[in-house]
Structure formats: structure tokens, C-alpha cells
């Protein structure tokens, strides 16, 4: 494994017109191998922050990424590929092609094969994108992001369309990438139990700002759920000793 990567946000902001969607977000340096769950209610600015870190939006503040080049930052958008007339395999090749050469090298094919295999979607390879279900398209979009071997991985709700098995599979793959290759992962999630299970750290956003951050077990708490998501919740250890968030209901007004 090569030298580590680090990511730090310093007073980062994004505005749409006068509306500040992300406002003065700062973090301590996030180190290689961290899986950071980005939590927060709808409209908190999670997607915008991820886009800003990916370099697709501009705004005040600094995104300091050390140890990864521009093309080593992988970003998975929330909206997945529109159904173009290409196969799954072709669409993943599109993501891996970086130079202008017309032909596809054996190395590139090997890279595509490895990624499809890692995600368990080799069987989809010859299918047309148009014929896929929403969840299958999401898997392909994830493959397109991973095939570039990013060192910083920004994923906007990668599990939103996936069935339970696929959710665990994808987050497992991502956690492995962090642990074995030192990738930094910043992933927005709605399911706090997935965050508890897979993320080493968590950042909670509300109204464009970070309201809590730290180790996921410290951040994801009943108080946080009440304050940010307005739900009554408690964390309990299951019979196997794992922490689970149990949602009791909406907070009394």
C-alpha cells in the first residue's frame, strides 16, 4: 500500500443564488482507511457537500486532499446513469478510459473484470443499461466509480435503490477498500444502522452545517436522533452484542 491519503475541509461553503446550501463546513483531517458516514435529514446539504468536495461545484473555503490526484477522487452521483444504448460492460469501460486511445487495452479489460467480479455483477455484463432495474443500475454506477481505483471515494446514497443483500454487499466492499487499500470513504446514508455497522466515523449535517462529528459510536446517539431527525430512538445491544438503533416513533411536539 502506498502512502496514505488525507482529506480536510476548511470553512467550505456552497451557495445557490443567495441560499447557502453548505455553510462553513470544517473538519479535522480525515485519514486513510476511514469510512465516514454523512448523515442528516433531507435538504441538509449532504449531496451538495459531496459535489463540492468532488470539485463539481465551487464556493468559498478549501478542500485539502493530500496524496490523491484529481482523477483519483471518485464520486458517485445520487442520480444514476440515464439509459444510454450501451451494455453494462461498455459503460464500465467508459469510466476506466482516461486517455484518448481508441482501442481498449487488455489491462483496462482486466480492471473492468475485477470490478464487476468484486461487486458480484459479472452476470450483468452483456445486458443493455436500458433493460436494467433501478437497483441494477445503481450497482453499475458503483462499478463505474470503483473501476477507476479512487483513493478518495465520495458516494451519494449508494444504497438507496438496493435490496438488503446488495446493501450489505456494497458497503462491505467499500469498507474492505478502505481497510485494505487505505481509501478514504465519505458516504451519505439514510440508514443509521448501516452507518453504525460499516462506518468508522460519522458526520451529521443539518441546514448546511456540521452539527456533530467523530467516531460513529459516539456521534450516532439517541440525543442526536432526537435533535436532528426529530424521532424518539434508543441504541441497544442485540443478543450478539452489536449496537442497533431502534426507532420508537416521531418526537412528541
Amino acid at each position: 500500500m502506498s502512502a496514505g491519503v488525507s482529506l480536510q475541509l476548511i470553512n467550505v461553503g456552497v451557495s445557490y443564488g443567495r441560499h447557502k446550501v453548505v455553510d462553513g463546513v470544517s473538519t479535522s483531517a480525515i485519514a486513510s482507511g476511514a469510512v465516514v458516514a454523512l448523515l442528516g435529514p433531507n435538504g441538509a446539504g449532504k449531496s451538495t457537500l459531496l459535489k463540492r468536495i468532488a470539485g463539481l461545484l465551487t464556493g468559498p473555503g478549501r478542500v485539502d486532499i493530500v496524496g490523491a490526484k484529481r482523477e483519483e477522487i471518485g464520486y458517485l452521483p445520487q442520480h444514476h446513469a440515464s439509459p444510454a444504448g450501451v451494455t453494462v460492460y461498455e459503460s464500465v469501460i467508459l469510466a476506466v478510459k482516461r486517455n484518448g486511445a481508441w482501442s481498449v487495452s487488455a489491462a483496462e479489460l482486466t480492471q473492468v473484470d475485477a470490478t464487476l467480479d468484486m461487486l458480484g455483477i459479472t452476470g450483468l455484463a452483456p445486458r443493455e443499461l436500458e433493460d436494467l432495474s433501478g437497483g441494477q443500475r445503481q450497482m453499475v454506477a458503483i462499478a463505474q466509480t470503483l473501476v477507476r481505483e479512487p483513493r478518495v471515494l465520495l458516494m451519494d446514497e449508494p444504497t438507496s435503490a438496493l435490496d438488503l443483500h446488495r446493501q450489505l454487499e456494497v458497503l462491505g466492499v467499500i469498507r474492505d477498500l478502505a481497510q485494505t487499500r487505505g481509501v478514504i470513504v465519505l458516504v451519505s446514508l439514510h440508514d443509521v444502522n448501516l452507518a453504525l455497522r460499516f462506518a468508522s466515523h460519522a458526520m451529521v449535517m443539518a441546514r448546511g452545517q456540521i452539527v456533530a462529528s467523530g467516531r460513529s459510536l459516539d456521534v450516532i446517539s439517541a440525543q442526536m436522533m432526537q435533535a436532528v431527525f426529530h424521532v424518539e430512538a434508543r441504541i441497544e445491544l442485540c443478543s450478539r452484542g452489536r449496537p442497533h438503533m431502534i426507532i420508537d416513533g416521531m418526537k412528541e411536539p
Partner: protein
Amino acid sequence: MSGRARSVEGASPVAGPALSAAAAAYRRRTHRKQAVLAFIATVLLGTVLLDLATGPARYSLGEIIPALVGADGAAPEIRAILWNIRLPTALMAVTVGAALAVAGAQMQTILANPMASPFTLGISGAAGFGASLALAFGFAILPAFVDYMVPLNALLMALLAAGIIHVFSLQRGATTERIVLLGIALVFSFNAFLTLVQFLASEQAVAAVVFWTMGSLSRVTWPKLGVCIVMLALVLPVFMRRAWSLTTLRLGEDRAASLGIDVRRLKLETMALVALLASVPVAFVGTIGFIGLVGPHIARLLIGEDQRFFLPASALCGALLLSSSSILSKTLVPGTLLPVGIVTAIIGVPFFLALILRDARRG
């Protein structure tokens, strides 16, 4: 991922690592696409020969080929007709067909809109209006280049229309339907301007403008053909170099941007080149509709949207369509040469309706 294999496409299969089944299938698919391209090109060659043989006087292939290659036994009058009239016309059909289809293909790509083409979104109409200003009044938008006022007027007006579409497409909420509606507005507007030109122009000029608005290959000369070929030869390689980016754009703008593509720039430059591709033919042969719509759709059905193949396939299909239309324009009404634009409309309108109906069912 260390130890990447070095062998490249086309290298000996023994040297490279064994390909996975999926990779092998991809290679087979690539070869099949190449074969399809070769097949369309062969059919096109046949159509061009048939186009050369068709006309007031019909010739057999046995008469045409010797006259083309300049064999000693060829009849001089056949050679004269072929080289002075039919060959430039037939090649113009191929060139213009290819240019319009590529323009349509790229409009459909960057607007993510299956109903986009130079004709349906008003770029051809704009070019027609620009050219008619020159034809009817001798008015040059750029007075410094009065010798080239017809194509230059056409190009400038096409750029204007393309610019309007481009700016509109960048707005939030610019859906497929709205872009089509904008196109309709542009088509109506430029048609109205064109009618105004006809109303104001002299009788003689009106005849020229009317004849030319119907789209006709009958006044093609070698120099006009040369300009079109040079234009196509300049634009096509630019698109070919961007084949990967343009294909990626079809996955959605967010996705393309996330893969490092400068989406705004790619769209802007493509739109400008589309205006060039669509306007130059209009300046020489008038407005020929629907090739830019139908050609890319056939190409997409045959070959998919990997632009390395989709682009040449669109060019070939457009060329094939216009070449076939040229033959039909000489044979549909015996003894009469119909304007080829009428023939392409007869083919294109039902196709356009089918597209709308398909989209309505899907939506």
C-alpha cells in the same frame, strides 16, 4: 492493482492474459460492430452505383464502371454525363447525408433528446433563412466575404439558432419536451422570416428561393461538393477524438462530470460544430429534412451508442438514406426529377410520428 498486463488490442492473443468470458464477449461485440459498419459501407457503395445509373438515360453497371475508371472502351457521352453531372450529385448526396446525420446524432447526444435534429429544432430553417437573404437580396451578414455570402449567412444564422438552443438547454427544467417545443418555435419563426423574404423578393429570386427550400441535389458542382467534403473532413475527426467523452455524456451530465469530463465545454463546442455541419449543406442543396433524425436512429438500432462506432454508423446511414432518396427522387414519378427534400420528408414524417408515439407510451 499491480502487475497490469501490457498487451493491447490487436496484439497476439497468446501474449496477453486469458480474457474473462465477459471481456471476450465484449471483444466479439466490437468485431460485430466493425462488421456491421463494413456491411453498411458496402450497401452504400451499391446505392451510389445505382444512383449513378439512374436518370433520364439509364445505364448499366457495365457501362458505368468503365466510364468511371476511365477505361479506353468507355463511351465519351456516358463519361461526360457521369463526371459532369451524376458523380458530383451522387457524392453530394453521400456527403450531405453523412453531415446531416452526424449533426443529428450529436444533437441527440448532447441534448439527451431522441427527437433532436438540425431540421426538427430549427437549425436548418435558420440556415435556410440566412442563405435566402443572400439569394434574394444579395445581402451579406459579413460584407467582407461577399463571395461566400450564401454559406456564411447560412452558418451565422445556424450558429444563432444553435446558440439559442444551447442556452435554453442549460436552464434548469429544460426537459426533452420543452426543447422540442423551443425547436418548433424556432422552425416557425425562421419559416415566417423565409416567407417574408419570398414576399419581398423579385419574382425571379422567389423562384430560386422556392426551388431551393425544397432541397435539391440537381445543381451540384464539383467546387460545392469540395467545400462540403472539406467541412466534413475537418469536423468528423474532432468528434472521433471525443468519442469516449461523447459516449460518457449519454450516461448523464452528472455522471460524465464525475468522471472528469468538462460537460459545459463539450456541449458548447459540439453544438457549434453541429451548426457548421448542418448549415453548409443547406447553403448548397437547400433544406433537406429528417436525414439528421432518422439516420442516427437506424445507426443506434444497428450498433448501439458507443460513439467509436455510432458516429461512423450515423454518417454511413445518413449517406445511405440520402443516396437512396436521390434514386427515389428520379424514379418515383417517371420522367420527373422530384426535389429530394420531398422524398426525405415522405420517409421522415412517419418515422418522427413513430418516435413521438413510442415516447408517449414509455412516458
